[in-house]
């Protein structure tokens, strides 16, 4: 058998976009992170950006499990929260002993904390995937969250443990008191973590994680122990979750038991799933959207969690690939130049869909505010929750919107089929 390299198509095709495109994306991301607070410089947007940055790291770390390795965890906040607690204790210790450790190093300690915990419990947890793993992760989550309230010396009970981020030695004259300096610290870690997690997907381990996700049984017959693969993935996920937790501790100068809890675990699952688990950038989109929505919605409605539930169910039912999945579905159409033929049908469908959505919102708010609360204000139009006209309007919007939307979405599907057929004929769709 000759071993001469075969100049096959496959070999030539393996660098998508080439090195330039690859570094270009990250340089662009770095530039965006630097100029963002210069464009939106209000205190509120700085706080939002900081939280979004943390959420991005957290969601990407979660996707190492869910999207890359096929592990559904209900307790990812454990590593995040423990990272946060370790970071707070580290900051206090550094300040007390005047150790020459600057603040930007602290998230790394959080990461080590998250990884150490994963190292400890992970071997048992990752023995099996699927439901077994999901259930154990839920159990560990509850266990740690409840012990955090009992072990007061470590976790500070209900009130948590506070710290002062400015008490560490300054770096380059930065004390990290002002939010803008904290933002840049977070932005730095977002970039480093995202690059590292992307790089991880391009390593032999990263590829085998995908294989374990697709078919753990077959993996055993190409030399790999899927248990080890899951364990390693779990540790990496714990590491980056710990970094996110450490950053949160720096941002709020406190760590408390809420960091470890089911709410936080649900939040990251939610962001990752809405963003889309099949593509690396999916969780980034999800983290941005969900954090932004959370910050925005809490100020306009008291039942914002209900909206999250509705969005989540909508995504699960109609777009299980998440936002990234929806976007990437259009790539072959863009390449084949047939996207233009579906856009008009989208625009038509948007109108009744929007009406339907407004009807749902009106219904939810009517129910929520029926027995008191601020008057409803929908797109500048005031509604009274107790007025039958409001109920009628809601009913018309929901029912009418739904019926018309159904017809228009059928049109979208037809336009899609035509566009996809053309794309297939032109060789852009398998």
């Amino acid at each position: 058998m000759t071993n001469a390299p075969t100049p096959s198509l496959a070999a030539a095709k393996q660098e998508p976009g080439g090195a330039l495109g690859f570094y270009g994306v990250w340089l662009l991301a770095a530039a965006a992170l630097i100029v963002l607070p210069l464009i939106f410089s209000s205190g509120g947007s700085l706080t939002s950006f900081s939280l979004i940055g943390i959420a991005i790291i957290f969601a990407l770390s979660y996707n190492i499990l869910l999207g890359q390795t096929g592990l559904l965890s209900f307790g990812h906040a454990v590593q995040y929260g423990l990272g946060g607690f370790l970071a707070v204790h580290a900051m206090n210790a550094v300040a007390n002993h005047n150790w020459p450790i600057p603040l930007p190093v602290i998230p790394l300690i959080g990461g080590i904390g998250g990884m150490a915990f994963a190292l400890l419990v992970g071997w048992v947890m990752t023995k099996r995937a699927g439901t077994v793993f999901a259930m154990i992760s839920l159990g560990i989550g509850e266990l740690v969250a409840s012990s955090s309230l009992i072990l007061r010396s470590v976790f500070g009970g209900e009130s948590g443990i506070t710290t002062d981020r400015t008490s560490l030695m300054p770096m380059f004259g930065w004390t990290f008191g002002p939010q803008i300096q904290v933002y840049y610290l977070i932005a730095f870690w977002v970039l480093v973590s995202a690059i590292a997690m992307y790089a991880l997907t391009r390593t032999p381990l990263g590829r085998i994680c995908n294989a374990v996700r697709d078919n753990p049984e077959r993996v055993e017959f190409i030399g790999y122990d899927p248990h080890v693969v899951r364990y390693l993935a779990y540790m990496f996920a714990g590491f980056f979750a710990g970094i996110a937790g450490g950053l949160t501790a720096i941002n709020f100068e406190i760590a408390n038991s809420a960091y470890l809890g089911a709410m936080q675990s649900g939040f990251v699952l939610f962001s990752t799933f809405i963003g889309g688990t099949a593509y690396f950038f999916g969780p980034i989109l999800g983290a941005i959207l969900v954090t932004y929505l959370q910050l925005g919605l809490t100020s306009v409605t008291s039942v914002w969690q209900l909206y999250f539930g509705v969005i989540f169910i909508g995504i699960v039912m109609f777009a299980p690939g998440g936002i990234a999945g929806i976007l990437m579905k259009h790539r072959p159409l863009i390449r084949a130049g047939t996207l233009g033929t579906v856009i008009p049908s989208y625009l038509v469908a948007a109108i009744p869909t929007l009406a339907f959505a407004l009807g749902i919102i009106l219904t939810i708010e009517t129910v929520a505010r029926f027995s008191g609360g601020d008057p409803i204000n929908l797109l500048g139009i005031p509604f009274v929750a107790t007025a039958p006209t409001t109920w009628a309007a809601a009913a018309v919007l929901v029912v009418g919107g739904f019926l018309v939307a159904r017809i228009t979405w059928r049109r979208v599907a037809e336009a899609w089929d035509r566009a996809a057929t053309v794309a297939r004929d032109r060789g852009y769709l398998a």
Partner: protein
Amino acid sequence: MTAAIQVNAVEKSFGNVQIIRDLNLSVAKGERHAIIGPNGAGKSTTFNLISGYIKPTSGEIRLNGEVTSGLRPFEINRRGLSRSFQVTNVFARMTVWENVRCAVLWATGHRYAFWKNVDNLPEVKQRTAQILDDIHLSHRSDVPAGLLTYAEQRELEIGITIAGGANVIMLDEPTAGMSHAETERAVALIRRLTEGRTLVIVEHDMSVVFGLADRISVLVYGHIIASGTPEEIRGNPKVKEAYLGEEVD
């Protein structure tokens, strides 16, 4: 010389149903050995036992002289045995290229490495391209494996099995469900790719079996009733009675 595969008095029961009874099999190094037998005889179960997918109830299995019964599939694979599956068993969401490349990684020593860029490993790349070329799937390298045609998936199944360079290859009905032309191509492929290696193949197509095999074992009700060269098997009255009937004449 030690045999590539040595199965000694292996028994296997599922619950209280005994599927494999007193199984004895010896496959010499470099031999092409076919296992034939009626449906449900236990051929795939024999593969599962040898490859570590299930453990024997009693008895012993050796690979190149070393006892492997009781080892996990990946441990046996690392000792140089690779098998395919009767029902296609690939990584559906990954591309054809990724499927084959994953099967190359352990054998090329990259193991669980998380510090190397998988796209920058020349020997991995070269070997993957070579395998894809061998199984005639180079032009489909970017397609998710789940979207391949049936025949293409069967070829990928073979590709994944041989990619690690194992010296003992076991193929479970590699041509099942293929057309005549596809079968011929697949057999030529198998013949070429297993050159110089040990091959154990389960096959129902008798022209394939008698054309390819150096030796044949006949499995009936979980027991090997005859083992020998194609001529010996053809002339064996017990085999004729139990299984082959008119087919070989």
